[in-house]
């Protein structure tokens, strides 16, 4: 068959034209839609990329913040532990001096008690010595009286008496008085020493009592220090715990930010790929518009072909 039936050719061309229009319409519609979709995706990619980038900057700031908090909390943990150690050491020292003060107080209280006993005994001895002195003086006066009486005595002939015995008694009484006086003086000195001892013990007890009172204040203060340090330690540990939670959140934020940036980059890659597709679609479509069925040259050529077919048919 060298020459086709024009009616068949026409039917074929009509079919091709009809499907071409349908195809062209669909391709045009798709091209329009995908161009819009492409633009939308480009805008979306740019917006998401900007947000993902901003998120990355935020993560860096947040990591610095949580790290700073962790560092601060760690520092406080160390400080509060050291303070706690110091407070317990100080409390131990306070307990030690309080014990010493209490022992001193008991000691000087006991010493005072003993000194008072000693003073009482010294005073008793003093009174006793004075009593002995008074007795000795009385005996001496009596011996003097006897001696004087003896010396004054004369018999009818004017002769005196032998007063050796009275004289001896006086001498003996004088010795007794002297010894009694020495005993009194010794007793007075003993009373003086005992009184001095009592005064010293009383003064020492006063200081020791004040030391006991002040040590009670020291113990109270040390207890407050330990309590405050305990509290500080607990709060510092809690601060550290919260800082760790902050760091963990920053780590999760970093992971999410990285995932966002990866996804954003993947979207951008896909968008570039789609853009490459669009370029090929446009260039191919331009060829179709010129050379394809229904294209500008096709229409011209078709008329020519149909003319030729018609002529051939007429020739037949």
């Amino acid at each position, binding site marked *: *068959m*060298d020459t*086709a039936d024009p009616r*068949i050719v026409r039917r*074929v061309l009509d*079919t091709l034209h009809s*499907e071409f229009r349908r*195809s062209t319409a*669909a391709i045009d*519609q*798709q*091209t329009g839609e995908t161009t819009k*979709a492409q633009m939308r*995706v480009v805008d979306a990619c740019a917006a998401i990329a900007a947000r*993902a980038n901003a*998120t990355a900057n*935020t993560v860096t700031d*947040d990591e610095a*913040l*949580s790290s700073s908090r962790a560092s601060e909390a760690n520092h406080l943990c160390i400080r509060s532990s050291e*303070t706690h150690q110091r*407070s317990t050491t*100080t409390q131990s020292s*306070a307990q030690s001096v309080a014990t010493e*003060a209490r022992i001193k107080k008991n000691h000087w209280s006991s010493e005072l008690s003993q000194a008072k006993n000693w003073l009482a005994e010294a005073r008793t001895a003093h009174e006793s010595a004075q009593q002995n002195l008074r007795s000795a003086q009385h005996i001496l006066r009596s011996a003097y009286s006897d001696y004087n009486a003896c010396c004054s005595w004369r018999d009818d002939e004017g002769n005196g008496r032998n007063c050796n015995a009275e004289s001896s008694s006086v001498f003996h009484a004088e010795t007794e008085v002297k010894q009694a006086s020495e005993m009194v003086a010794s007793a007075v000195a003993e009373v003086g020493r005992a009184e001095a001892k009592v005064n010293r013990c009383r003064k020492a007890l*006063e*200081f*020791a009592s004040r*030391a006991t009172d002040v040590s009670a204040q*020291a113990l109270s203060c*040390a207890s407050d*220090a*330990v309590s*405050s*340090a305990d*509290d*500080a330690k607990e709060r*510092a540990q809690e*601060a550290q715990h919260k*800082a760790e*939670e*902050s760091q963990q*959140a*920053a780590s*999760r*934020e970093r992971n*999410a*930010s990285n*995932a*966002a940036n990866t*996804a*954003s980059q*993947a*979207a951008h890659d896909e*968008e570039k790929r789609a853009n490459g597709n669009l370029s*090929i*679609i446009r260039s191919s479509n331009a*060829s*179709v518009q010129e050379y394809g069925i229904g294209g500008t*040259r096709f229409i011209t050529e078709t008329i020519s072909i149909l003319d030729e077919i018609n002529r051939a048919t007429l020739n037949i």
Partner: protein
Amino acid sequence: MDHSDILWTANRAYRVITESVRDAQNVWGDENRRRAEHVFINAWIENTGRILTEMQSQHASLSAADQHNKTAEEQIRVAASNSDDVHHYAKISKELAVSADDRVQAAMGHIASTDQFISEVKNLISAADSAGG
């Protein structure tokens, strides 16, 4: 009509045309057909086939880009939520740290006072010993 429907329509038209061309070969076999086929039809089939392939690929890429953007958005939301947590815990940590520092200062003050009292007690004990002789 969404992209899938449009692509389906275009693909269908493409198939009909290629089948029509094949059918036409049976009824239109002259030089004009060969010329039309050589110059136009083959070029159209080739270009349109390429267009449809690229459209399919573009459609897939745009869908994938959309999906990636959704994933990125979700991860940005997760990151923002975690950022809130970072600030929340950092704020509490700061408050606790300030409070702990206050307690440390208080403890240091008490330790200093205790040291003074201890020193005073020691002096008083010495004074007691001196006074007692």
